[in-house]
């Protein structure tokens, strides 16, 4: 947005979905003299100050109509100072002097359709006694438009060569705006057949290699050569050097983008262009948007229609989605775990399988139909990893658990999380079965995505005899109670004062197990917490804290609702049951 006083030659990009044939530009060109019709910068400034002062004095500036004498004077002026005002439509051809003479000479047998058309237009102009003015245009398809060279050269170096890319892009002049590559509708991602084009034409190759849209260009030019009055000059006319300047370049792309360079300058300073002749004259010009504006009623109707279409799409989608969502009972936290045993690495033998099992502590519940444990398939190592022996499982498992804290537990006690135990074992072709490792993981107490590497160990006997047996015939020491991996159940139940001791238990470290977990929490209390912080909503996750702090509130609310329901039931029963006292 240039200021009032700036006159940078700038480029503007507009977007419009209306048909381009309605686009019109008004060009006002005038030679700059002291009594020019177009307001100069000074005059504009004076007028603005004047209107401001008058408004302060609370007087309306009088706008007098132009009287007849004023108009005649103005026309007279325009002849002297070369004032020209033209409304140019899209791809409207206006001839300059040279073209007028050249095309007006006549048509021959080998003239193209364009030349014929131009000849007809010129004949019409001659019939109406119209002469070409200073403002003319070059449109798509004009052969002698030198201005196209401006497309290729960006710097003022005389040795600049246009690159292949510039040549290619400037060569794309297709009119067909709806190429299948560009207009991809919602339902139509790819063509189902004939994805490959085996014989592309050079045009196809150009369009596909160079990412640009088909576009058309038009140049509005000014012919600033000296006017020779043919009537007065009886001398032989010397050929005048052409002095054509670009006033404005308009480029329209097939997706409705309009690029105008320079931009409209109707309220700002005029653009200047100098002739560079002996008598160096300065011309200034204004570019104004001259298309017919849309009628206000039509605009309102169009906006309403578009809004309706959008609203309909939204409601359609919202209807598909619906409003129902499964919720757990108040006072319970539901935990969904989606996990997978991904892979195992660096175990001693091959052909390994994993046994996993879930252990629930107190106050955790699960449905009876849920699967608590399972076995993976027996996997052999992959050849893709050179340094490690990796076995791939990609074995998914899922658990759905409920945490229901008992009423007498401490109010803010963090719950003990369930554990998943893993046992890795191998079974080879000879039927030798060996325990390869044990490990476990706590289900994380915070929801999210976890990618864990769990290190495993296996029990080793006290003597070398066990190892020998394991090597030759298979069979190794295994844990009787898999919960020994974490906190043995015996220890939990005994509740003696001694600390847990595994002293004397010999193990050997084996490989690692890669497990991925996705943990999701759901509860009414968390919904309440989200509801509370409506204003300053941060992205923090609440977890158990929110659950525990709101649990009393929800339980009370639940109790209240239940009590109210019971009361209503009582009262309706009283109304409907017969009351003998009424009849007495």
């Amino acid at each position, binding site marked *: 947005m240039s200021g009032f006083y700036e006159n940078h030659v700038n480029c503007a990009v507009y977007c419009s979905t209306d048909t381009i044939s309605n686009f019109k530009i008004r060009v006002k060109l005038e030679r700059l003299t002291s009594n020019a019709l177009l307001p100069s910068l000074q005059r504009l400034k004076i007028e603005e100050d004047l209107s401001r002062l008058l408004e302060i004095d609370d007087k309306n500036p009088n706008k007098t109509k132009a009287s007849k004498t004023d108009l005649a004077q103005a026309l007279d002026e325009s002849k002297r100072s070369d004032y020209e005002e033209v409304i140019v439509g899209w791809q409207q051809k206006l001839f300059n002097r040279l073209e007028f003479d050249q095309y007006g000479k006549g048509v021959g047998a080998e003239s193209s359709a364009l030349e014929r058309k131009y000849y007809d237009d010129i004949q019409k102009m001659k019939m109406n006694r119209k002469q070409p003015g200073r403002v003319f245009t070059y449109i798509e398809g004009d052969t002698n438009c030198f201005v196209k060279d401006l497309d290729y050269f960006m710097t003022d170096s005389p040795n600049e060569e246009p690159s292949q890319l510039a040549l290619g892009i400037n060569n794309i002049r297709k009119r067909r705006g709806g190429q299948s590559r560009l207009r991809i509708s919602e339902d139509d*991602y790819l063509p189902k057949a004939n994805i490959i084009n085996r014989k592309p034409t050079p045009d196809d190759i150009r369009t596909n290699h160079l990412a640009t849209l088909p576009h058309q260009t038009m140049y509005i030019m000014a012919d600033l050569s000296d006017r020779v009055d043919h009537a007065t000059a009886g001398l032989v006319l010397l050929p005048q050097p052409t002095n054509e300047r670009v006033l404005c370049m308009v480029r329209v792309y097939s997706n409705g983008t309009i690029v105008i360079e320079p931009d409209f300058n109707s309220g700002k300073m005029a653009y200047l262009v100098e002739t560079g002749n002996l008598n160096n004259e300065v011309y200034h010009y204004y570019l104004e948007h001259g298309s017919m504006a849309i009628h206000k009623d039509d605009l309102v109707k169009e906006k309403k229609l578009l809004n309706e279409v959008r609203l309909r799409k939204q409601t359609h*989608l919202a209807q*598909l*989605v*619906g*409003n*129902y*969502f*499964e*919720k757990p009972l108040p006072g319970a936290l*539901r935990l*969904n775990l*989606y*996990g*997978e045993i*991904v*892979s195992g690495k660096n175990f001693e033998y091959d052909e390994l*399988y994993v046994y996993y099992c879930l252990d629930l502590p107190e106050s955790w519940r699960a449905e009876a139909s849920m*699967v608590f444990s*399972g*076995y*993976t*398939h*027996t*996997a*052999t*190592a*992959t*050849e*893709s*990893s050179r340094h490690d022996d*990796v*076995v*791939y*499982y*990609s*074995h*998914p*498992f*899922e658990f*759905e658990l409920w945490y229901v804290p008992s009423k007498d537990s401490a109010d803010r006690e963090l719950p003990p999380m369930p554990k998943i135990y893993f046992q890795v074992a191998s079974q080879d072709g000879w039927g030798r079965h060996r325990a390869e490792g044990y490990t476990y993981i706590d289900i994380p107490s915070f*929801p*999210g*995505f976890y990618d864990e590497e769990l290190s495993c160990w296996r029990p080793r006997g006290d003597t070398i005899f066990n190892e020998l047996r394991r090597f030759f015939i298979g069979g190794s020491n295994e844990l009787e109670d898999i919960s020994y991996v974490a906190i043995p159940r015996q220890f939990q139940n005994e509740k003696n004062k001694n600390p847990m001791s595994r002293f004397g238990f010999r193990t050997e470290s084996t490989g690692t197990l890669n497990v*991925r977990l*996705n*943990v*999701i*929490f*759901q*509860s*009414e*209390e*968390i*919904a*309440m917490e*989200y509801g509370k912080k409506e204003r300053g909503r941060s992205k923090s*996750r*609440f*977890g158990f804290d929110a659950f525990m702090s709101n649990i009393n509130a929800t339980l009370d609310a639940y109790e209240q609702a239940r009590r109210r329901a019971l009361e209503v039931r009582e009262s309706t029963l009283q109304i409907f049951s017969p009351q003998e006292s009424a009849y007495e």
Partner: protein
Amino acid sequence: MSEVHVIGQILGASGFPESSVFCKWKVQMGSAWRVLQGDHEGQTQIDEPSDEPIANWCHPIDLHFATKGLQGWPKFHLQVWHQDVYGRNELYSYGFCHVPTSPGLHEIDCVTWRPKGSLIEELKTQFIGGSAQLKNPDLVSSSAELYKLRTVSMGKVHLRLHVIVRNFDKYGVEF
């Protein structure tokens, strides 16, 4: 009801013995889920890298789910196939992987395996190609029957997924 968007791509695969591979993928979900927009299954193109052992597909995934509950979170079923110079297609491996539940960007390597036959069959696989296939690939991911299988680990399929969730906080769900 809440919505989940999964936007991303199947980047490619690595670690397979031969490199002209393609992938047939499918997203399976529970009965509470519904696909609103996007294809939930598809097949990538065959990539034949000339120098490096990684096949690049960059196959776009753009899915929009609506769900009534948390069970049956969608998961990917992948089958990696190989096309050799004679134009024969043979199954290389199977892979399963959950769509991550927490919103954000996830780069996941889904590992794959194929069923292993007897010694003679393995020799055949080595020379002629082709291996035993699962009778019912869909059932296998439910994990109750898998212990009967013996497998050989193959390569990895790389996925890059963005997960966007909507309207879950109203129902008290936390990721």
